[in-house]
């Protein structure tokens, strides 16, 4: 059976510029009903119909899970990406009818935690917006450390400080403020769980230090959706479907497979959930693996690829699809 999600027909109810890079989008159901309840850390996949192209990008839900009249996401404009964020910023206006997926949570709170220690970098703040709302409503114990480039790019820093006061700690790159990570990680009460969402470098840094300081791996949670990277076009043969496709420069392999009418399962489209894992039948060339799902051994083996984020350079690639 397909493991994709159910779709929701929504209308854009509001578009709010937050700062020079980030815009917030509000969605309501077209039929006026309530949206499904969700848990803090969940994302939805937004379908963007851009001419004859369809992009499917995941965004964390950032509203309170207690309010399901509308969903909100915040999108950071990426001028050198594949165009999804530019489409959102330029084309999406109030009243536009869109399709989004049901919420999926791959960055769930561990409700056993005595304390939730949250580390956010940049736009990685969004899942914590929902998680802090959820925890605050239930009297949960949390502390948020948030790094941003400048005060004006500190998306929702003001809102968070207003809501949670000294439970929120801000660090500005332009003022050379840095999290004293080792000290922070060494001074937590027993039963603390650590959550990190931000750029890959930050996630790796936090995971490495936590491991070095003896944090058990099951207490360290991270979310990193790799956006698919553009790259040189390449050709792929889909053996089961008996067809050959070309993956365009700005297209992901998964998008190209879908454009050929083949529908592999997916959830995150960011190299995390494992749903679209695809077997390689043969190849002559080099893989560019960008996922966080396959093991290093899998990457070396040349037998598997995550088509949502990974690419290929070379003469031929045959996939079991």
């Amino acid at each position: 059976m397909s493991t994709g999600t159910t779709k929701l027909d929504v209308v854009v109810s509001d578009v709010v510029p937050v700062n020079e890079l980030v815009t917030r989008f509000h969605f309501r159901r077209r039929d006026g009903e309530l949206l499904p309840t969700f848990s803090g850390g969940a994302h939805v996949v937004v379908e963007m119909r851009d001419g004859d192209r369809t992009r499917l990008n995941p965004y964390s839900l950032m509203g309170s899970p207690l309010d399901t009249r509308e969903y909100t996401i915040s999108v950071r404009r990426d001028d050198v990406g594949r165009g999804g964020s530019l489409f959102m910023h330029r084309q999406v206006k109030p009243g536009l009818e869109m399709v989004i997926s049901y919420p999926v949570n791959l960055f769930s709170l561990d409700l056993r935690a005595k304390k939730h220690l949250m580390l956010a970098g940049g736009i990685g703040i969004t899942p914590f917006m929902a998680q802090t709302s959820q925890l605050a409503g239930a009297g949960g114990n949390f502390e948020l450390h948030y790094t941003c480039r400048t005060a004006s790019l500190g998306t929702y820093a003001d809102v968070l400080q207003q809501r949670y006061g000294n439970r929120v700690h801000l660090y500005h790159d332009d003022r050379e403020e840095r999290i004293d990570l080792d000290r922070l990680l060494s001074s937590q009460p027993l039963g603390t769980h650590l959550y990190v969402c931000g750029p890959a470098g930050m996630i790796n840094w936090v995971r490495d230090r936590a491991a070095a300081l003896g944090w058990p791996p099951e207490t360290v949670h991270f979310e990193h959706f790799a956006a698919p990277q553009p790259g040189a076009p390449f050709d792929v043969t889909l053996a089961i479907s008996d067809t050959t496709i070309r993956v365009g420069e700005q297209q992901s392999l998964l998008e190209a497979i879908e454009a050929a009418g083949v529908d592999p399962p997916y959830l995150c489209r960011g190299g995390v959930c494992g749903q679209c894992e695809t077997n390689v039948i043969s190849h002559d060339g080099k893989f560019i693996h960008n996922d966080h799902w396959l093991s290093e051994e899998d990457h070396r083996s040349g037998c598997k690829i995550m088509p949502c984020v990974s690419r290929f350079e070379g003469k031929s690639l045959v996939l079991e699809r």
Partner: protein
Amino acid sequence: MGITFRKETFRDDYTFRNSPEHIRRFPFPFNEDAYMYAVNIEPHVVGPKGSVLENLIDVDEHYVAEMQDRALVLAEDPLRCQSLPHMTLAGWDLLELLMEQQALGYPEHFTLERNGDRWRWINRPLGIDDTFTFGDTATLPYGPMEYITRQSQGDFCILDQRDGNLWMDAGMVTTQADWSLDFDIGMNFFEWHAPVPLAHEKGIFTRALKFLTNIQQGKPARRLNWTMTINPRLDTSPENYHKWGPDRATVTPENVGQKVHLRVELQSFWRLPRSNAIVFPIRCYLIKMDELVTQPKWARRLHRVIRDLPEELATYKGLTRYRPTLVEWLSKLDDGSPTSPGFGPD
């Protein structure tokens, strides 16, 4: 027209019976003349009218009697219902799911009125009319999971999802086929399945876990499982083994039809929205051999399945002692003619 609820017992004098309509809607679990494990999971979508899948949460003529039996089990052994401290939110999720589904499927028996977080729940068969604040445990007579599962047929396990595994961290288990919540509480998926023979070697649990951890909100799944029980006893727990285990030695050619029951579990799997946990309802259906063989196709097929069942499975399901007697009895109803494909009666 609503359901006519039967007055009956699942212990002592065992007055449990299925009406003719309920015999025909019984979820017979064999679609061919042999049985082996498979990952037989499918989407839990609404099925044909008059089947147990007509509603995603099924309420039937045994509802009131089953709830009375559950209350008796809990009075003797409160540990059949347990919820670890971090599972309260999942309990509210389950309360919402079961109230919504029962009110949707059986509006003549159940009504849910929601006014913000002020909810009113009317359960006519059990004479309940409660108003409470959703999310505030102090406004209910029990915790949310216990409250609603005292009013819902079937056992319920709530599985917390973390570290790529599922953890049996809450449940209401009073109609079980010889397993114990009190023993399994806090265990992960591989730990609580450790006793099952053959399936580990086939990699079934690894694949099943991968599937279950990816169950999505709004897309529940289901599977059927089965065993056999002597006398229509819902509570065949290890805790009470001394009460029902010896019954297996009482089967004779004369009483097979009344004593031996096929026990089918309709298991479903749902993602819970607030807690991101999975709830696993295990709904038990019982049918006497005398009732089952009123459908000639089922009689022929059950004979072939039980006769040819691998020894390990027969042992695991506890059939060993009475299997020869049962097979001999069923063989008289099997003329060797072919059976039609599919589960349903002809």
